[in-house]
């Protein structure tokens, strides 16, 4: 009989990939919806199974077609990729479970089966980027997820949706092509595409200048996909005009997976010594992310459309993850990874809340949300809790990552960064609270809010599952921080020696 455990890595990718064309074959709305939910659920279950195996026995290697690694494509599940895959598949499943009424309301019925097919393909692409151990394969999966997300975004109701998708497509393609150039140069230098093989063969200390070029191209390419300031311009429009369900899914997962790919690139392929000592990646990341956090958060404050507000907030939050990477200590990397997870939860949850409001109020403009807390108390409460998470109030997940980031900044003597980080997070208070006030403390409820009713139960339940998770992972940190710490430990076992002499704690001069 087939040994299901040893085949889990490929099933994770193959099942949704297989299900997508089945959706097209089936057509219709209900059948494809059920199939997609079942497939997403299965995928989630598989990713949990994989994670368990990883925790028990260490990294899993799977050879596709039984071709040995440097030549064949290898799938690798380790602590980091397993962790990322787990929350990506979990959010994909939950968002889909939640999204039926929203999908019905926002997407033309004749296109539903195509929507589900694209959704599954997008998830496949994201999971594939995580699991594959082959660099070119990363590009392929990156494009699978990108292409399907362009299609998903263009399904938005307004005429701006196709334009937003096109803008994303142009920038995304340029980013992906940059990444491809980098892969080509690496292949030229090493003659292999297997990531660990490249890492072994790459002489990062005395390597040729081509190395720098490759690194530059790949970094910039991923920066576009991560929406790092100043390459973020595609993101606000894409998130704003996409259907709410798509926004919830893409915002929660897509940029995180790109961050994951970036972490792999920096710590797995190029050595951190190369990236942070020979290349000024640390300074670059710290500067870009701090500037980005300030500018994007400020921009978020002035948005009237809540989706756009959250989109700008996402750009800012990516900055926090990059801060964690940029400080390049084991602890800061842990903080960055934890923030990936926490932010995926929080942003996913908040966009789900937005979806509920859009369903009932017909708009994501803040002025239409006035006084909606009266008629939609549960949804509004979910926003308040999620918003607290975004601000980083204690007992929410956002606090955990912020605290970890803060302590690691102090440990690596980046006090200035720590201070700016804290000040910048105050901006989040402003933009989150604007919405809370509008919801709860508006004297004149909008016409839509007066007549609105509470969102349907089967949207509320999955949404509250995510919101509840925000609270749970704010208290129970062993899971998220523990797994992240292990992953960071394996990527960066020793902190880089700081180049500038600093006063080390505990040492007497």
């Amino acid at each position, binding site marked *: 009989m087939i040994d299901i455990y040893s085949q889990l890595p*490929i099933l994770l990718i*193959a099942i949704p990939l297989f299900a997508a064309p089945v959706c097209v074959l089936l057509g219709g709305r209900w059948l494809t919806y059920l199939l997609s939910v079942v497939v997403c659920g299965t995928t989630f279950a598989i990713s949990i199974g994989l994670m368990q195996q990883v925790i028990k026995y260490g990294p899993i290697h799977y*050879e*596709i077609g*039984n071709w040995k690694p440097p030549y064949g494509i290898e799938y690798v599940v380790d602590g980091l990729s397993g962790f990322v895959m787990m929350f990506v598949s979990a959010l994909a499943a939950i968002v889909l479970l939640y999204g039926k009424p929203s999908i019905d309301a926002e997407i033309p019925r004749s296109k539903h089966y195509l929507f589900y097919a694209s959704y599954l393909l997008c998830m496949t692409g994201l999971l594939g980027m995580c699991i594959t151990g082959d660099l070119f394969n990363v590009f392929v999966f990156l494009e699978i997820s990108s292409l399907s997300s362009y299609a998903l975004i263009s399904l938005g109701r307004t005429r701006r949706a196709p334009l937003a998708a096109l803008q994303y497509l142009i920038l995304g393609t340029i980013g992906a092509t940059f990444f491809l150039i980098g892969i080509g140069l690496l292949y030229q230098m090493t003659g292999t595409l297997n990531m660990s093989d490249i890492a072994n063969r790459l002489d990062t200390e005395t390597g040729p200048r081509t190395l720098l070029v490759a690194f530059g191209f790949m970094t910039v390419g991923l920066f576009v996909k991560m929406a790092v300031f100043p390459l973020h311009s595609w993101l606000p429009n894409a998130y704003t005009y996409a259907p709410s369900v798509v926004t919830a899914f893409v915002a929660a997962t897509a940029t995180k997976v790109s961050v994951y790919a970036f972490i792999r690139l920096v710590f797995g392929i190029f050595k951190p010594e190369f990236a942070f000592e020979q290349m000024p990646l640390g300074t670059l990341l710290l500067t870009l992310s701090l500037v980005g956090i300030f500018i994007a958060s400020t921009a978020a404050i002035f948005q009237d459309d809540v989706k756009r507000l959250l989109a700008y907030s996402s750009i800012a939050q990516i900055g926090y993850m990059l801060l964690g990477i940029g400080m390049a200590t084991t602890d800061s990397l842990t903080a960055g990874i934890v923030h990936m997870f926490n932010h995926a939860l929080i942003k996913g949850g908040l966009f789900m809340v937005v979806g509920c409001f859009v369903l009932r109020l017909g708009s994501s403009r803040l002025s239409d949300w006035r006084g909606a807390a009266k008629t939609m108390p549960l949804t509004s409460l979910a926003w308040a809790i999620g918003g607290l998470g975004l601000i980083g109030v204690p007992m929410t997940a956002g606090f955990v990552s912020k605290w970890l980031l803060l302590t690691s900044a102090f440990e690596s003597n980046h006090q200035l960064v720590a201070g700016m980080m804290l000040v910048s997070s105050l901006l989040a208070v402003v933009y989150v609270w604007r919405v809370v006030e509008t919801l709860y403390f508006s004297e004149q409820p909008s016409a839509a809010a007066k007549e609105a009713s509470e969102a349907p139960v089967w949207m509320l339940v999955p949404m509250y599952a995510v919101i509840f998770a925000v609270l749970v992972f704010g208290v129970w940190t062993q899971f998220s921080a523990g797994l992240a710490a292990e992953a960071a430990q394996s990527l960066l076992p020793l902190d880089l020696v700081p180049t500038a002499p600093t006063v080390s704690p505990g040492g007497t001069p």
Partner: protein
Amino acid sequence: MISFPIIRVVSKLLIPYILLFALYVQFHGDFGPGGGFQAGVIFASAIVLYAMVFGLPAAYEVAPPKVIEKLVAVGLLLYAGTGFASLFLPRPNQDVPVTGNFLEYEVFQHNLLPGILPTGQHLGIFLVELGVGITVTAVMIIIFYAFAGRERVA
């Protein structure tokens, strides 16, 4: 187009050969340069030519859009199905029975009509290429339909 009889006649003559060539590229891909990808494009080009010369409605009759859309999925499923099939078949020449990995073509070895039916690696590649060929054909046609038939379909 009715007023260009030469074009009509020539295309009618050419299309079978284009299709034949596509099939050649498809099935000889195992032995020489070629394969499902190239074959699919060639095959689709025949349909496109037909549609251009005889009009879209005629092409819709030959290759109905609904069917073509499903064919995209069928091709993909053939490819993915080959992968899944390899999960369930035992690896040849093993002491302990072990099933194959995804897309491990070795497991397709069999002894039916040796020399005529492809076997093992060959069979696996054959199936995958066939799936690719179908998908590429269908996708190319559907892209053409999507642009050429925009006003009528919408």
